[in-house]
């Protein structure tokens, strides 16, 4: 999948852990810059820098009220990431669904040979 530069791509924007933290906070509702600075324990310039990146990719919206600047989440661009993960997630799920069947058989065998540790006690054996 082709990617654009940091400033235009949600993938890049959320690659930074602090920016994800900001999104997590905003998921709880609109926050002022001051509130974000307090919650994150980062300097205001650094928070502002992260907010600028998030804003440029459209992940946050901004609103000025008096001297305060408020940010809120706009999750739309995140959909591209979720969509990207879907086929991989499905492939993993198919694999584990088959593992369920194998495990169900192991369980049945273990029930049949209950008390016979020689047969199926592998997981319990000290290494």
């Amino acid at each position, binding site marked *: 999948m082709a990617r654009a530069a940091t400033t235009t791509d949600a993938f890049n924007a959320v690659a930074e852990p602090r920016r994800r933290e900001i999104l997590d906070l905003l998921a709880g509702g609109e926050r002022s810059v001051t509130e974000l600075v307090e919650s994150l324990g980062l300097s205001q310039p650094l928070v502002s820098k992260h907010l600028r990146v998030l804003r440029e990719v459209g992940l946050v919206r901004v609103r000025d009220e008096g001297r305060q600047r408020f940010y809120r989440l706009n999750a739309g661009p995140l959909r591209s990431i979720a969509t990207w993960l879907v086929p991989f997630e499905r*492939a993993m799920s198919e694999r584990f669904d088959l593992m369920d069947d194998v495990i169900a058989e192991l369980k049945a065998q273990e029930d049949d040979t209950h008390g016979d540790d020689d047969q199926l006690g592998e*997981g319990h054996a000290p290494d």
Partner: protein
Amino acid sequence: MATTTNSAKVTLPTDTQILITREFDAPRHLVWKAYTTPDLIARWWGGSHGKVTSAEVDLRVGGTWRYVLAANEGFEVAFHGEYQEISAPDRLVNTEIYEGAPEGVGVVTTTLTEAGGRTTLTQLCEYGTREVRDAVIDSGMEGGMQESMDALEQVAVSLR
């Protein structure tokens, strides 16, 4: 038969990682057994992508593993790696190399935690670069994307 409807959850904790979690309706030692026994691996590892033709496991630190899948499309897909940490039945660390792109080495940490007779499997896959990580995710497109397109088409047809 334990046909749980749990699907695997995939998240991207950092730029170079993939985190996969899945719950199983079974105690941990059985999940471990299914996860590490060659003839059992052969039954699940291929998913719906094809048939596992070989599963070699030398389960000791420094030992190697290699799985080969004959994909439905006719080609062969092989992965191999080395075991770095083994703590049965709760933790396994191994490298993972896709033989079609051997320069991208992954380190996979698999953890099994049991609670109330159920087991949660978590797999943290760490790659050297984001490009490798992304290529691994993209590899899921092969079968999966087509299926999701087919499903989408069915939905679209049903709406007509």
